């Protein structure tokens, strides 16, 4: 019996490498024995301790990130496309006997087993199969534009909406000519209808 592979399939949510961190907290005694317990002193201690924790956590994340090989294969395999023309993610290409995906998966496992880092592995695939092997644009050169543009549009949209809201709020109300007593007939009906609309929940 041949076990071919076991992977997690494509998800609608962004898949990133699984990372686990261990938070190492300082012993309470150290704080209690510290020479200064003034507010400023305590703030300094907390800031220093916080910075140490961040550095430590980053180190732990970094070290652990390089660990689990099957997770790395899974992650990298979902960042590349099968190049047979099926337009599917490499690990999701389901063509039996596909001339490319089986070989590419083998090459990916070999690269991870060799200890190549992510960039090196992906670079190797790009050199061999071309830029279209990457499932998403890289974050270098002109390709950065692909990533930046949606956020830029969102930011511009937010600014635009803010400007519109401000303009609308500062706009004076346009009152109809004549006094209230002059309103009658269809005009009165219009205002009644508008008042009904405005006071609805």
């Amino acid at each position: 019996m041949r076990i071919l592979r076991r992977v997690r399939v494509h998800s609608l949510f962004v898949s990133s490498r699984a990372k686990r961190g261990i938070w190492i907290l300082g012993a309470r005694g150290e704080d209690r024995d510290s020479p200064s317990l003034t507010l400023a002193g305590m703030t300094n201690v907390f800031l220093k301790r916080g910075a140490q924790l961040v550095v430590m956590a980053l180190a732990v994340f970094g070290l652990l990130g390089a660990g689990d090989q099957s997770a790395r294969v899974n992650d990298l395999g979902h960042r590349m496309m099968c190049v047979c023309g099926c337009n599917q993610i490499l690990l999701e290409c389901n063509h039996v006997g596909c001339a490319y995906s089986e070989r590419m998966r083998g090459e990916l496992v070999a690269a991870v087993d060799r200890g190549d880092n992510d960039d090196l592995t992906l670079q190797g695939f790009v050199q061999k199969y071309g830029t279209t092997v990457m499932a998403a644009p890289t974050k270098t050169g002109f390709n950065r534009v692909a990533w930046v543009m949606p956020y830029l549009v969102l930011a511009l949209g937010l600014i635009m909406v803010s400007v519109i809201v401000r303009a609308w709020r500062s706009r004076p109300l346009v009152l109809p000519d004549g006094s209230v007593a002059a309103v009658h007939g269809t005009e009165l009906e219009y205002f009644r209808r508008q008042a009904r609309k405005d006071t609805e929940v």
Partner: protein
Amino acid sequence: MSQIGSFALLLALALCAYSFLAGILALVNKGPGSERLGETARRAGIASFVVVFLGAVVLVVAAFQNDFSIAYIFHHSNRDLPAPYKFATLWSGQEGSLLFWALLLSAYGLVLRLRYKTDVRLFAYASVIIAAVQVFFLLLLNFAANPFGVMQGTLPADGTGLNPLLQYPEMVIHPPMLYLGYVGFTVPFAFALAALIMRYPGEKWIQITRRWTMVTWGFLTCGVFLGAHWAYSVLGWGGYWGWDPVENASLMPWLTGTAFLHSVMMQEKRGMLKTWNMWLIFSTFMLSIFGTFLTRSGVVSSVHAFAQSSIGDWFVAFLAIIFATCLFFYVKNRSHLRTEHKLESLVSRESSFLFNNLLLLVACFTVLWGTLFPVLSEWVQGTKVTVGPPFFNRVNVPVALLLLLLTAVGPLLAWRRTSIDSLKRNFLWPAIGAIALGILLVALGMKPWNDVSYFYSLMTIMLSALVALTVISEFVRGGRVIGRHTGQNLFASMVQLAHRNTRRYGGYIVHFGVIVIMIGFAGSVFNQDKEQEMGFGDKMTIGSYTLVCQSYTQDDNPNYGSEWAVMNVFKGGKQIATLNPERRFYKASQQTSTMVANRSTPQEDLYVVYEGQNPDTGRPIIKVHLNPLVMWIWVGVWIMIVGTVVALIPNSVPVRVSAPVRMRAEPVGAGD
């Protein structure tokens, strides 16, 4: 047969051209006889439906009669093709699908032209605009993509058959639904442009347009999700959405159409966003045409078969004409679109609609941008790049989460202004419920800090709970008030409440459907799969299931040969199902196709794919996916459809209370 079809298309073109030109003359010329001229234009438009229908019937009859002298029938049918798929031949290829498009457009035009008495002049303008669009598609059918082109040389004995991927029951209904959506946006577009051209007084056109848009949007929703379900059931890769350009093309008008359905309420209620709404509906129609251009021009690569063709230039020209026309009349008549009211508070329904529109349009832009970026990249740097699921997911998931948050908050905001106290009062318990659910999920083992996808999944479930609780609280609060007045039980009161303002409560039901779908999406984070070669009696374990290969065999019929396996499924040591994953080889087209065996439950789908045989051992290779919560997506779509239908039902007369009300009652069942 082909002559009848070709003649029908030519006659349809002449009728539509007449309807367009005579319609314009009748509208421009105020002299005597213009009314009668307008009437002839309307009748020519009606007649165009009959003639296009005849053309479509001829093509279907040709498919049933195996008339392979028609090139289209040769390429998309064969003698042994089952009858339902022969019927589906009409929309299985480029030319046929364009004819189907023209048929639906003429059918929409027929309904519009028959209902002209609603507002004779507005409908006359809209009829002329629809005739113009009909002329474009009929020009295309007559001169660029004729479905009645004949085969050259010796008459072939049999056709090359229908693409195997299309030989699935849903393919008989998915394209019609999708096309009803795409084509349907022509009608709101026609009304909007007509209202702008004639400086239509009042908001009646908006009410007419809204109803058409809702129907169209409902069809498009069905079409998009039927496509997703088809991809899930047929393609065999375990997913339902791959961000293919064709899928993206259907999503873009859906997003702008959704934005329009929300923002149009501001125009109806407050006379605001008139320009915005006008351009939203213009954009939605243009995106429908643009999507067609994308998928039929070959400008982007797609797994869909329409990608190779040369009709792209026609669509570019048509898009340019539409845009120029819209811009011209907007510039000419923009003074007609002045806002009537000012925004009074940032915490109001109006501002929530503004942000909702912003997010929907950003999502639409992202999809468009990602779809076109490979072309742009090739143009700028000379190398094509792939923009696939990782890009779309990373950018769109946060936007979708923000939209979910607005879906929860928006309905709690009143028009004009909302006091913070009222917001707190309405929002507190749903928020506590959502947070409690989040804590419970973390306690049960969901670790959002492990992976950003888990974080998104948790946030989706929490925000969905928030939306569900706000929707339920709205129903319950309104139902209670009606119950107090009428003495009915809570359920009956809630039904009456929904009937009093179908649009508002239908909308809530649609929102509820959306969150059920989102929960289904959130489940995809926990997908698993396993692939294994399986002989007789071999076992495979995935999740809590054990699959045992009972047997594998081959079968044959005139249309296809097949290989399939019999898999017994066990859970907790007890057999719960037998699944038959299958792989077919279609003889006419010489292509293979997968028939997935899927055991679907609300908790998860056990999705079994027969991938093929190992040539060395002759044993089947079976791939099994365990996909949690997928059924929620399809259930959510049904809920959305129910909500849309409810929203289309006219409101009942508000309940009249004869007895004096002793308690202070908030107005219920009113407003949107």
